[in-house]
């Protein structure tokens, strides 16, 4: 093993680790810690820069062959995830002025980076756990309502079940192929023995549970609602990205056979339909985003039906567009006297009259999430359905597109509330903090960049 290679290839992870250690030290030595947010932001920003640098290097690095791999595309995806974590941190100040929030969030990010690079089931499992365990605490950390504890427990149990299923599936694959490498999954895809097929179903179900695909989605609305705004934004975008990276690693570029193709077609489309339908009836923003994220997870898994290098591109692009616009919406959300009032959609009425910039930012986010061109959410969907169709699944792509139609109304409703209703003037509402608006503008800049030059971005994936 080459020590310098292990240093460079894992540089983003190392920087994150240094940040976590620094945050813990600050926590220990100082009672009135103030430097946590800057330290967290600086370490994430440097990690993102390191990842971007590795991506532009253009080399595939394997410091631990068979365990950890870094292709330029993976490095670029890491850079995007880390860059999107910066606005999440920026909006956290109001909810978490200090405390264990920052090291926990960075640990979870570390897990996501590890998952994205894993090339064996062991590394992947490690990554998934490092990613998920801090989130159980993060959900509970903003303990504002009694339901928070219940939701966190629900999330813990179900997510633990998913981990168990993943392990079971991995051991079945090991049993049938004698290998723990992610390549063994593709081998199992090709064979049609009962053992390998049940292994596939186990692993895929674990991903579905972690990413909240119908019918494994029950925990998501509760957990999203119970968590605080920055944690919800983090769970809905970056944690989901981590799960998808895991799926991308195991699926590789291999084509799909039955029964997996059927499962991967049916359940994601059911997710799109159900997520979009259920989102229409929500009165709270976070529950609405939860159901919308169930639908978006549907598109993302549908993308696995595509084949070849386009699969990674489509998923990574979609995650970037979806992540940026979702965080954008949360960043621009006005502050309120309590959590419930902040969450109420009705209280957004007339936001344009109170805070035009925030309303425009949220409006752009909603249109992009709905997949209306020219916003990048459209380009993401386009890419996914193009690949699915090119892989020969014409009718599945058409069904997915038509199902996506259901998702337009409830996003429009938010715009309707903000722009077309008289000012609700809810008590105790304050505009979002300057830092949060800054975070929103960061996301907007990224959104505009990938909308104007998607080709530039795709070439780097």
């Amino acid at each position, binding site marked *: 093993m080459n020590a310098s290679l292990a240093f460079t290839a894992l540089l983003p992870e190392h920087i994150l680790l240094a940040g976590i250690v620094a945050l813990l030290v600050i926590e220990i030595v100082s009672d009135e810690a103030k430097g946590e947010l800057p330290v967290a932001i600086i370490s994430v920003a440097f990690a993102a820069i390191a990842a971007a640098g590795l991506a532009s290097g253009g080399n595939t690095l394997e410091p631990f062959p068979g365990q950890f791999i870094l292709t330029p595309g993976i490095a670029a995806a890491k850079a995007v995830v880390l860059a999107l974590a910066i606005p999440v941190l920026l909006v956290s100040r109001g909810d978490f002025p200090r405390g264990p929030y920052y090291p926990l969030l960075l640990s979870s990010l570390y897990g996501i980076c590890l998952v994205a690079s894993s090339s064996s089931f062991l590394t992947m499992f490690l990554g998934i756990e490092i990613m998920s365990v801090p989130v159980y605490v993060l959900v509970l950390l903003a303990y504002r309502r009694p339901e928070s504890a219940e939701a966190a427990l629900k999330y813990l149990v179900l997510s633990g079940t998913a981990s168990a299923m993943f392990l079971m599936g991995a051991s079945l694959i090991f049993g049938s192929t004698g290998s723990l490498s992610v390549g063994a999954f593709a081998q199992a895809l090709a064979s049609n023995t009962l053992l390998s097929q049940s292994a596939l179903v186990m692993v895929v179900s674990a991903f579905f549970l972690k990413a909240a695909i119908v019918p494994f989605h029950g925990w998501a609305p509760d957990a999203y609602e119970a968590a605080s705004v920055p944690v919800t934004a983090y769970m809905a975008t970056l944690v989901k990205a981590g799960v998808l990276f895991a799926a991308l690693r195991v699926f590789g570029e291999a084509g799909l056979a039955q029964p997996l193709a059927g499962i991967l077609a049916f359940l994601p489309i059911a997710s799109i339909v159900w997520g979009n339908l259920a989102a229409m009836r929500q009165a709270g923003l976070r529950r609405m985003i939860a159901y919308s994220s169930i639908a978006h997870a549907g598109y993302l898994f549908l993308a696995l039906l595509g084949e070849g290098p386009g699969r990674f591109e489509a998923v990574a692009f979609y995650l970037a567009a979806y992540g940026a616009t979702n965080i954008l919406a949360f960043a621009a959300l006005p502050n309120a006297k309590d959590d419930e009032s902040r969450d109420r959609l009705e209280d957004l009425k007339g936001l344009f009259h109170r805070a035009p910039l925030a309303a425009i930012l949220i409006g752009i986010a909603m249109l992009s999430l709905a997949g209306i061109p020219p916003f990048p959410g459209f380009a993401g969907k386009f890419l996914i359905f*193009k690949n699915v169709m090119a892989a020969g699944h014409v009718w599945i792509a058409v069904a997915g597109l*038509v199902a996506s139609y259901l998702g337009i109304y409830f996003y429009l409703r938010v715009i309707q509330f903000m*722009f077309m209703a008289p000012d609700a003037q809810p008590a105790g509402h304050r505009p979002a903090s300057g830092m949060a608006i800054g975070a929103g503008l960061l996301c907007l800049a990224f959104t505009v960049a990938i909308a104007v030059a998607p*080709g530039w971005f*795709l070439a780097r994936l």
Partner: protein
Amino acid sequence: MADATMLNVVLWLPFAGMLAIAVVPAGRDGFVRGLTFWTMVVQFFLAAMLYARFDPAAAGLQAATNVPWIADWGVSYAVGLDGYNILLVLLTAFLGPLVTAGAFSAITKQVKLFYAMVFLIQFAMLGTFLAQDLFLFYLFWEAMLIPMFLMIGIWGGERRIYATLKFFLYTAFGSILMLAAIIWLVWWQWKGTGALSFAFADLLKANVPVGAQFWLLGAFGISFAIKVPMVPLHTWLPDAHVEAPTAGSVILAGVLLKMGTYGFMKLGLPLFPDATRAAVPLLAALGTLSIVYGACLALVQTDIKKIIAYSSISHLGYVVLGLASLDLLGIQGAMMQMVSHGLVAAGLFLMVGMIYERCHTRELAAYGGLARVVPVYSVFFVILTLASVGLPTTSGFTGEFLVLIGAFAAGWRELQAGGSAFFLAMAILAATGVVLGALYMLWFAQRFLFGAEKVPHGPITDLGGREKAILITLVASIFWLGLFPEGALRKSEPAARDYQQLIAGKAAAKAPAKGVAR
């Protein structure tokens, strides 16, 4: 080259205007109005220069720009003028300043956002007409929805939320189907040639299998038919028109509806010629149904705006019939009718807006005898009514007349060739639409302008200078097109021939088709 730069300026000027409005400090409403109006005027003059320089004899695109945009997907920023879009681009640019000026007195809240949206929709409409790349076309096509959604939803009437959601959801459904068809079409083209391309010119050569053509034509067709709108997909239009502010109605009737018929002519039908030839009777039947059904519904409305909204459905039915006739005269008539309806309906909606600002009701029964109260208004109203009816010397006559001739000729040819009399029957039915049209419009004008004097919230003043200037401009252009249609017809004739040939293939090339202009 200079022309290409000028075309890009025409296209991007409204976008720049929108950005400029965004940085104007709040409260400077007068400045925003002036900025929008003069930007639109400049845009019109540039567009008019392009129109004047457009050479119908030259083949291919003119003033074209084509630069790769998303190279991986074969998407390019390709815009240009051809016979298909030249008239509609000019129409859009012409209506821009009129719409802006027409809204000066009506829009008093959130002025900045309103004119930003007027700019945005102008940009999107021009982009849709000018785009020569399917991806770009789709982007602009969808981008039109957002400003219109806000325009109806923010500045609309009482039921504006319902109307605007209905408008958006109807159109978006068609768009989703179109998107699916676009992806399939491009994929097919890619499979055949190995190079991914969204350029119209490449896709027209895609040789889509006949079986698939029907699905694709269905998807494109539903999307365009919703936009036109054709009966039975028309129900969003009356609601949208009634609830929209005047400027919204004018843009909707003046330009937006033509997107549907333009889409049919430029893309929907030529891309799938085999399916189109089979679907011609259906198209003709739906066009005729729209003419007659729209006219019948207009006859029984009690809301002024609804009368004009249904008359739009009826008038656009002629366009569809003309396109379905595949006869050169019919096609040219269809193109003429698009422009004519854009001018006439825009004028009528502006006039309804003017009276609504004074009297605050759209109920027809509340009015009467306006001719004595506001004589200048009434004169303009009568002129526009007659243009809508299709009185010779107005632009409405040229369009409808050519369409009917084309439809009769097509029907007659089919009968001569031993075919069915179906098309001829459609032509005859469509001709009754002209009578119905005269009936509802004249009856409307009679109840509105004559009879016992009834003026809600009176007394009211007659037209002001700004309003007169707007209407004089419109009326002059309507007469100009009615008296001297040759210029416009000549500019669009190559496109009509091109369209005919793309669909009918070699069969039509032999037929003795004569252009009007020659």
